[in-house]
């Protein structure tokens, strides 16, 4: 929408023309349906409210059909998808509450604020439910490093994530970053938050109690972010920079106060229902609370705390100003609640009441400015069964057909410094990853480990997806994403419990994109069912396209696991010399879609990705976990991007200890750089106990820890320090380049 929107729509008597409808991102058929539900032509305010509620971002109209098929159940799930965040039982009366959400479109336009408010939004989703946030994670995708915007976006996004999380005092404990040209015009910023609550103190969004007061708390409402949800439901074009006014501005200081005030009030029993004002602000929070409670709501906008003058009803309802919450209190508890928010210096205002009408009625300056049926607003958006075509299968590339130009050691020296494999230290050192004093497994390992405060338990958290696999074969890629988080959590000794996801795709109106979406979900579901690893929350971000070119399909998965005794958890760093190094899981040398094939060989055709056998994943992972918990395994690392040799290097860097390789493979390149799944590298002292326990699990001894080099069986040796420097230096050097 153009910037003079506010002036133009000050009055509700503006005629709703086809152009106005189109400007709101609604299709003619959708508008017709709205008129039907209303029984009359909506006015401008009502049209605005319908347009955001029916946007892809809020209504999931293209994806809902498929999301309904996901595995969301397990004995330990307390709350699956549909609330602000999902909830799992972690024993002893405690629950872990978590969710991941995208902030892609705003972060591309305004990286600092886009990323910062993404973090703020996901934390509100978690503490809305009564949890204290204990860890933040993220999954980031940027364009090609050589693209002129990439450095600016990396710098802004990383500062924004740090700026928000550091200030509020919740540790950012890890994440993942990829660079690929498919994200040149659409970066992905997916933020995840994990919180801890008592199982009997979880708060939900469903409003109840006719006559109960509806209360607004937090920051004042301004004109920022109007139509953010609509923007996030459309493609970009060359004029996307003009959408800057739709990006919200974050204030982590206010959010910290809001967090403490909400948790303080939640300790009482004054709250009936609570919902954060996220995408589509006051509109979606009030619609969701009332519709979930199957009740009506009446709001008087004269009581909304505004930070700008002369705001219209349309603007107040659609503003996405940050750090605001809506709640329903038990009647008569207003004074006690107000005192808490006043003490924290936050606005507190009774803005409405619950009614029996099942309608949303909005008053402004003594007049009714909107009167809409809640059912259609919340659930009436047309559900699309978008046509899709399956992604054609690619041929499997035979390792023997690849012409290698570099020796294994030469290739390794290049690979440790590749954009997708280089150390991420430059990023995570800008995040406070230790505040709250419970980070027992810091960034740089497989999964972050965060102790549950005051207990022996720890949560293991990982985010993963391999978009090049998903692009090549959505089903295998979807499986792999779920399995990789499972494997990362397992490699610490924790038991994976549940996942959240952020499904980032292109334009669903194109059948090939819809085919990617359907395929990825099918793969995710297979893995999730077999591993008893249900989806408990998530978010869909479609229309990640610019000028008709979509991103690689990127279903980012955030996994959470539990270890009952954090002192039994292990890291990727071998603790001493003389430990035997094994590969667990079969190495077939699958070179297709590997980083080696893409970046070292530079192949145009990457072929099929490694197939994922989820049963194998489960068997190998269960074996690893048992051997960690009984103390046999000293260090473990999953094998993923870059293959076996890169996993070995990660361990050597972390342990500051070399490895003497004793194994001579038949096809060295395929063996060391192939990306077969379901594999781990482990360091073991008691080899006889380990080998005896393995049974049918494939294990191969490949070397021994010691010295300060990586030495191959043929005697070729590379100094660990040389490799480590290359691995550490790529990102800082890239970021410090002078602009040309």
């Amino acid at each position, binding site marked *: 929408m153009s910037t003079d929107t506010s002036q133009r729509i000050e009055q509700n008597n503006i005629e709703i023309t086809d152009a106005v409808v189109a400007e709101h991102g609604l299709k003619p058929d959708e508008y017709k349906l709205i008129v039907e539900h209303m029984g009359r032509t909506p006015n401008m305010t009502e049209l605005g409210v319908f347009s955001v509620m029916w946007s892809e971002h809020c209504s999931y109209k293209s994806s809902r059909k498929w999301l309904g098929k996901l595995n969301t159940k397990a004995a330990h799930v307390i709350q699956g998808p549909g609330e602000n965040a999902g909830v799992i039982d972690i024993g002893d009366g405690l629950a872990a509450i978590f969710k991941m959400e995208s902030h892609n479109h705003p972060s591309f336009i305004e990286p600092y604020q886009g990323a910062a408010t993404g973090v703020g939004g996901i934390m509100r989703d978690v503490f809305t439910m009564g949890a204290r946030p204990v860890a933040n994670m993220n999954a980031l995708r940027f364009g090609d490093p050589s693209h002129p915007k990439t450095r600016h976006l990396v710098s802004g996004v990383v500062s924004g994530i740090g700026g928000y999380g550091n*200030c509020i*005092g919740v540790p950012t404990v890890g994440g993942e970053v990829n660079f690929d040209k498919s994200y040149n015009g659409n970066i992905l910023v997916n933020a995840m938050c994990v919180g801890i609550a008592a199982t009997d103190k979880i708060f939900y969004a469903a409003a109840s109690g006719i006559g109960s007061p509806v209360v607004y708390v937090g920051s004042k409402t301004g004109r920022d972010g109007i139509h953010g949800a609509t923007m996030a439901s459309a493609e970009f074009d060359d004029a996307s920079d003009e959408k800057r006014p739709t990006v919200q501005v974050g204030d982590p*200081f206010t959010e910290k106060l809001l967090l403490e005030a909400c948790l303080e009030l939640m300790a009482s029993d004054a709250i009936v229902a609570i919902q954060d004002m996220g995408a589509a602000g006051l509109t979606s929070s009030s619609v969701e609370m009332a519709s979930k409670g199957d009740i009506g709501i009446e709001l008087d906008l004269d009581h909304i705390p505004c930070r700008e003058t002369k705001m219209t009803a349309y603007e107040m309802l659609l503003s996405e100003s940050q750090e605001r919450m809506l709640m329903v209190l038990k009647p008569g508890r207003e004074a006690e609640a107000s005192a808490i928010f006043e003490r924290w210096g936050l606005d507190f205002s009774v803005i409405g009441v619950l009614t029996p009408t099942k309608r949303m009625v909005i008053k402004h300056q003594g007049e009714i400015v909107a009167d809409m049926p809640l059912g259609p607003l919340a659930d009436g958006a047309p559900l699309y069964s978008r046509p899709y075509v399956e992604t054609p299968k690619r041929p499997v590339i035979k390792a023997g057909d690849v012409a290698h130009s570099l020796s294994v050691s030469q290739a390794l020296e290049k690979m440790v410094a590749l954009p997708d494999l280089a150390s991420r230290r430059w990023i995570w050192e800008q995040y*406070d990853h230790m505040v709250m004093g419970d980070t027992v497994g810091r960034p740089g390992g497989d999964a972050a480990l965060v102790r549950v405060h005051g207990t022996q338990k720890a949560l293991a958290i990982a985010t993963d997806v391999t978009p090049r696999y998903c692009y090549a074969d959505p089903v295998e890629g979807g499986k792999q994403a779920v399995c990789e988080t499972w494997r990362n959590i397992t490699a610490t000794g924790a038991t994976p419990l549940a996942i959240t996801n952020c499904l980032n795709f292109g334009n669903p109106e194109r059948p090939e994109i819809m085919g990617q979406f359907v395929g990825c979900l099918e793969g995710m579901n297979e893995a999730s069912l077999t591993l008893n690893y249900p989806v408990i929350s998530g978010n869909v971000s479609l229309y990640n396209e610019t000028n008709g070119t979509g991103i690689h399909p990127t279903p980012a998965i955030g996994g959470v696991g539990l270890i009952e005794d*954090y002192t039994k958890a292990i890291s990727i760093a071998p603790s001493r010399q003389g430990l035997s190094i094994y590969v667990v899981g079969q190495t077939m040398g699958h070179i297709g879609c590997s980083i080696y094939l893409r970046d070292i060989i530079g192949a145009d055709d990457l072929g099929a990705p490694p197939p994922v056998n989820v049963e194998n994943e489960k068997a190998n992972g269960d074996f690893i976990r048992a051997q960690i918990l009984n103390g046999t395994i000293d260090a473990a690392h999953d094998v993923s991007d870059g293959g076996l040799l890169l996993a070995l290097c990660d361990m050597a860097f972390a342990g500051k200890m070399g490895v003497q390789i004793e194994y001579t493979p038949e096809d060295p390149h395929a063996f060391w750089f192939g990306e077969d799944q379901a594999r781990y590298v482990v360091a073991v002292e008691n080899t006889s106990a380990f080998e005896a326990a393995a049974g049918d699990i494939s294990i191969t001894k490949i070397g021994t820890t010691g010295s300060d080099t990586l030495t191959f069986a043929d005697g070729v040796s590379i100094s660990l320090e040389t490799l480590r420097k290359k691995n550490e230096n790529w990102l800082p050097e890239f970021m410090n380049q002078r602009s040309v």
Partner: protein
Amino acid sequence: MTATVIVFPGSNCDRDVAVCLEAALGEVPIMAWHGDHQLPDCDAIILPGGFSYGDYLRGGSIAAQSPIMREVVSAAQKGIPVLGICNGFQILTECGLLPGVLMRNSGLKFICRDVDLTVGNTQTPFMSGYKRDQNITLPIAHNEGNYFASDETLDALEDNDLIVLRYAGENPNGASRAIAGIRNQAGNVVGMMPHPERLAEAALGGEDGRAIFDGLASFLAK
């Protein structure tokens, strides 16, 4: 032995430091609110890390003007031990209990990592658990830790042996003369950028920070 932790809006290491104080002193510390006009009866005061008042204006500048800080300043002048960690150090310089200022890091980025430090003067309740010239590791996590003061002030700090911690090896934030922590002339007020509360337990990766709290405990026990 009772310690008081001052909680400002935006403090976020208050709980972390309270955990360490309880472990060392055997008593749960009192959490005092920024708006209070009276300081609880206590034996030591801690200004924790965080982003008091959102770091608006300048790190620590608004907190230095809060009602409770008038009481903290007067208690410090009477000799009660006061420790400011990170944002607490910034507040101590802003309210004049310690000289100098903490500027933006020279690299213009927030830095969170373990750093190597060398212990200087230990004649304060908070440093007595260390030995002079001892090498220790503590984490830093700040945007504004670049200690700056006039040459005369820096010379005076050195001449009077008031530097308690210096960065060893790499200087992470550009601090003048690699200063990471200082004390006042009387010895009861200490400010430091590193976070001892974050490495006071082996499970968190090290225990070098524990001596700060144990040192305070043995000082108060005397």
